[in-house]
């Protein structure tokens, strides 16, 4: 009893997110994820409050903790002031620290997020970076984005950007000393270790699945696999 629960309790988001769930189901009623996935945030709040490590470990290895969209609609409505979205965030963090995330199809996707958004933060100083948002990976962006992608400097500068320029402005080049500060923050706060943990467990899983995983970038069999695979078992009928 309690080892994983105790780890969850070191996360302020878990302590803030879980007070006492009365199983009313209001969070599930308002939840966008619950309208789409086989997902019930009420069950998750109820499961973790039992303080049973076997059940928590099962959650950390499950698909279900990866269904939430973190819109936090549950926060507004819970009559007891719980926030299932914060419970989910703390479960996801622990799942990755313990290496359990690679046991689910949705959990394994974390490497794809780390290799894109996660690395763009450190490489460019932005969570998103236009030249990396490839039309072939984003067909839903349509012909306008396809056109923009071919003319990024012209389109951006037409709209008042300072694209890759020095000084302030839209999509300016973030100065190297600022990127160095971001990297130092990652090193000091555990962000770098967290990225390495995602890489370590993903590498083991890739080997287990017999899929090639290069050390960097997104051009690997394993990344392609986790980015696109959907076994169609996640949704409501």
């Amino acid at each position: 009893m309690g080892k994983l629960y105790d780890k969850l309790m070191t996360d302020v988001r878990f302590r803030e997110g879980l007070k006492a769930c009365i199983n009313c189901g209001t969070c599930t009623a308002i939840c966008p994820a619950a309208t789409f996935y086989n997902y019930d945030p009420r069950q998750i709040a109820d499961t973790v409050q039992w303080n049973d490590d076997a059940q928590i470990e099962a959650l950390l290895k499950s698909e279900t903790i990866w269904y939430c969209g973190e819109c936090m609609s549950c926060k507004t409505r819970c009559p007891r002031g719980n926030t299932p979205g914060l419970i989910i965030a703390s479960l996801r963090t622990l799942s990755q620290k313990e290496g359990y995330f690679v046991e689910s199809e949705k959990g394994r996707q974390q490497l794809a997020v780390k290799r894109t958004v996660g690395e763009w933060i450190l490489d460019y100083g932005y969570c998103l970076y236009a030249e990396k948002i490839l039309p072939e990976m984003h067909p839903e962006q349509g012909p306008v984005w396809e056109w923009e992608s071919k003319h990024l400097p012209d389109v951006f500068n037409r709209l008042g950007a300072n694209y890759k320029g020095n000084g302030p402005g839209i999509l300016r080049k973030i100065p190297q000393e600022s990127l160095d500060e971001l990297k130092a923050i990652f090193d000091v706060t555990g962000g770098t270790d967290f990225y390495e943990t995602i890489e370590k467990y993903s590498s083991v899983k890739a080997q287990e699945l017999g899929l090639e995983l290069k050390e960097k970038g997104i051009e690997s069999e394993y990344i392609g696999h986790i980015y696109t695979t959907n076994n169609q078992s996640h949704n409501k009928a």
Partner: protein
Amino acid sequence: MILEGKKQIWSDYQKEIADDRYFYVRSCVRQNFFPGSETAFLRIMQQELGKDIYEHPHHTTCSGIGYHSDVVPFDTTMTIVARQFSLMTEAGYKNLVPSCITSFGLYTEILETWKHFPHEEEKVRNYLRKATGREFEKPENLAHASDVIFKFRKEIAFKAKHKLINQQTGEPLKVVEHIGCHYAKMFPDKGVGGAEYPYVLAGMVEEWGGEVIDYPERRHCCGFGFRQYLVQANRGYSIACSQKKFESMKLYKPDLIITNCPGCPMFLDRWQYAIAEMEGVTYGENGMGIPVFTYEEVAGLVLGYDPWDLGLQVHQVSCEPVLDKIGIEYDPEKKYDGPYGKKIGKPELPFNLKCC
């Protein structure tokens, strides 16, 4: 609920919004997808309203998308945000204005966390000192950029060249307002009008002559869901959320959608294209989509700015039906021009979704 009741709720959720001297932090999504909106915001603030608003060239992402897709730890994100506070302190400002709703929600969450767990603030101060040698003051006032436009909506109305009125019928345009989830769902008292009846966009629409539509799925998420959009295998979640909203609003025949979150206009715009191409279903008039705007774009149109200066050409759903209704003049030949009239081609037309 009767209108008086709603007005009472709105009046219970009024927030303090600083009057001048703002420290502006940009949005990752908006810079990449709707850069003209940030340009318009600064133009309105500086040229129309004469305000002091400053952007520090060394500010970065707040890491919010990485945080909410759970690859960036909370300690890391809090310290990155503390660094933004440090830049604000260094520049001599106290009023923080984020362009992004995810950032606004995150800054609010972090400040509230520090209020309830003071040792977390102390920990972050130590992290920041160790990593960068920086110190910081917390902002005295935190307001989203849409709060600031809301505050000055009457001044904008006073300078208006156009109203949100159909010039052919004389009727107010019917407007769907969509509020980003992280604006007030987490901390209702931090948003104008709270979470259930937010007034930040409704106030602008009413002041500028339009009529707000109340429809069943008004508060449903656009479907970004962070990892639910970022990973291709999950995008069914994202498009399903948007579709749920379109199906709910279509009965009211909206003329346009106005949004205050950087991601929402992108999803509500692009998913209309995707639904049209996948299923042949369109939600606007004559096979077109419902035009989706940012609040800066709507403010810019009201003030008489050129639609192509605002960046309406980088929306997938054509904006022209709304421009025609309002009576805004535009040059179709210049729509896809680059800087200084440079010709850079134009996008292909979709198969199903009708575009201008």
